[in-house]
């Protein structure tokens, strides 16, 4: 009994999907690696009380009284040291502040460019002044902010999601196409009546499936393990991931459109991805970069995607707020795709 003939687009998509699933390593890098990274970073930066800062008191007549006063501060770990040892400890960063006494009173020795040293100096001074009877003139108390959505893991997870979408989008296109070109499979395919657009479209369609799976896995993992919640709409998050994923597929197609070897593809992929790994706010906010380069950074596709993901996941932003970024991402994707298609090398 003759088996039915399915449309070429469906065959191409199904074949592409099977090929990927049979490539064990690729499956690991797409699904396993981001989870391991999220787990490691999540634990490294998990919530815990602020570290107490070690400070040194120089041996002398006032040392015992000062040690007792400093010990009452919840932010400090004071210890008594000899002058020479204290200098050495300060130089090596083993203590942040050295407390000495001279004719004029207490001397705080520290590096003012280190924020934790400045804070420790303030804490030490408060402790010493209060022990000698200083009274605060304005009554004050503290309120501690620990809300969900403001922790490091809440910031990190959307960044990892964006990074993963970039990596799988670019490599998903790059590796298969470069490989098929090198093995002359592309040439063999264009020797049939196959529509070239079907081939490229199939690459995009099979990506959709993986895109949904990898997004779901990472978001579910963040929620179950670290309690990272999606504060905005899940559908909008999915839409953002799909637009972002496809933008990078388009950029991946452009990157691989003429490359003849896997080495060339690999080099170009890194040339494009590494700057975005650094600049686009995966692990830390790009607000730390100088003002002059920020407009450029904000226009990078990964920055657009990461910002949009954080807006939806952390800030519960709606479609109207995210739309400009999604639109910009779509422009990146479509323009790259069209240029890539134009200059594509089939053999």
């Amino acid at each position, binding site marked *: 009994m003759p*088996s039915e003939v399915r449309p*070429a687009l469906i*065959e191409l998509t199904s074949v592409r999907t099977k*090929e990927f699933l049979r490539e064990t390593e690729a499956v690991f890098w797409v699904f396993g690696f981001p989870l391991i990274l999220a787990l490691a970073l999540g634990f490294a930066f998990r919530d815990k009380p602020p570290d107490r800062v070690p400070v040194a008191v120089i041996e002398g007549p006032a040392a015992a009284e000062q040690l007792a006063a400093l010990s009452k501060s919840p932010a400090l770990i004071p210890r008594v040291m000899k002058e020479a040892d204290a200098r050495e400890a300060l130089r090596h960063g083993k203590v942040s502040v050295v407390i000495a006494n001279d004719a004029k009173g207490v001397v705080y020795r520290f590096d003012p460019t280190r924020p934790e040293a400045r804070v420790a100096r303030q804490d030490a001074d408060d402790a010493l002044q209060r022990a000698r009877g200083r009274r605060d003139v304005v009554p004050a108390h503290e309120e501690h902010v620990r809300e969900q959505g403001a922790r490091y893991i809440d910031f990190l997870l959307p960044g990892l999601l964006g990074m993963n979408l970039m990596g799988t989008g670019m490599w998903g296109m790059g590796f298969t196409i470069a490989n098929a070109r090198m093995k*002359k499979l592309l040439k*063999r395919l264009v020797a*049939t*009546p196959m529509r070239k657009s079907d081939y490229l479209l199939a690459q995009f369609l099979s990506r959709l499936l993986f895109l949904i799976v990898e997004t779901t896995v990472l978001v579910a993992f963040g929620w179950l393990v670290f309690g990272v919640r999606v504060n905005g709409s899940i559908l909008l998050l999915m839409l953002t991931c799909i637009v972002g994923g496809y933008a990078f597929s388009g950029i991946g197609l452009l990157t691989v459109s003429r490359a003849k070897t896997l080495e060339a593809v690999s080099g170009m992929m890194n040339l494009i991805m590494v700057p975005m790994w650094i600049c686009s706010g995966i692990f830390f906010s790009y607000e730390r970069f100088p003002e002059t380069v920020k407009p450029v950074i904000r226009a990078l596709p990964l920055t657009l995607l990461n910002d949009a993901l954080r807006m939806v996941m952390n800030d519960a932003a709606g479609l109207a707020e995210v739309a400009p970024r999604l639109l910009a991402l779509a422009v990146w994707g479509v323009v790259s795709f069209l240029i890539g298609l134009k200059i594509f090398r089939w053999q």
Partner: protein
Amino acid sequence: MPSDAILCRSLKKYYADVKAVDGLELSIAAGECFGLLGPNGAGKTTTIEILEGLTPADSGDVEILGMTWRRDERALRERIGISLQETQLAEKLTVLETLRLFRSFYRNGHDPDELLRDLSLDEKRDARVGKLSGGQRQRLAAACALVGDPDILFLDEPTTGLDPQSRLQLWDVVQRFRQKGGTVLLTTHYMEEAERLCDRVAIIDHGHLIALGTPAELIGKLEAPHIIEFTSEPPLSEDIWKRLPGCHGMTAKNGSWMLRVDSLADAVPKLLATIDEQGSKLVTLSTHAATLEDLFVSLTGRELRDA
């Protein structure tokens, strides 16, 4: 319906350092099996890929089934089947998946399962392409070329590197395609393959056609149906052949001499006597009926497989 399945005129393709095809004219009739013969680098692959519409020619005309690549590419692709010289099909797919994929590109064609049975690949239908032997891969490549039920089959060195049994199996595939009226254009550097499969053969060298005809005609052109190959110690001088009866020439090959003669019965005794007269001693002697290989050597002074 024009009687020529494949036609090309004044075909030229120059690369920076080499004239790959230099004014080639060919006309191949429908139903014919035509062989392009030549050493590596002769321009066989460039020629066949121009005819397949994969490489643009610098100048010249190509007509396939009365159509041109510029105007009728899609229609032509439906009617030809191609096996490239070095395609590696996706290793992670199974044989059947691969063939179904290729079948999906054609409007009409064979049932993949049936085709696999015809090519004795049905036992391997669920095996990954990466696990196939060289012969099985070539048969799968042939299956991919045949699955669209083409009128013309283009095969670029279909049996290079295959063991004798795999080669026979592939020849069988080609012959069965021909029995159904198909036209075949193949390139090869195996003489026996051309002699066995091809109705007509074109020998090309440096992008030029240097001989064209049926294998029998071409061998007939040698004027000498027999070849004597011999070595002697010390070697004989080059003009020795002029003294032998019915001898048409002598060519050197790997340190031995090849004589082209009308009759072994006349030439061999005289050759032995001459070697004796010269105070030389016969080291090796063998004879065979002339082949296309000998024709190529006599035309170019080189061997076809000048590896």
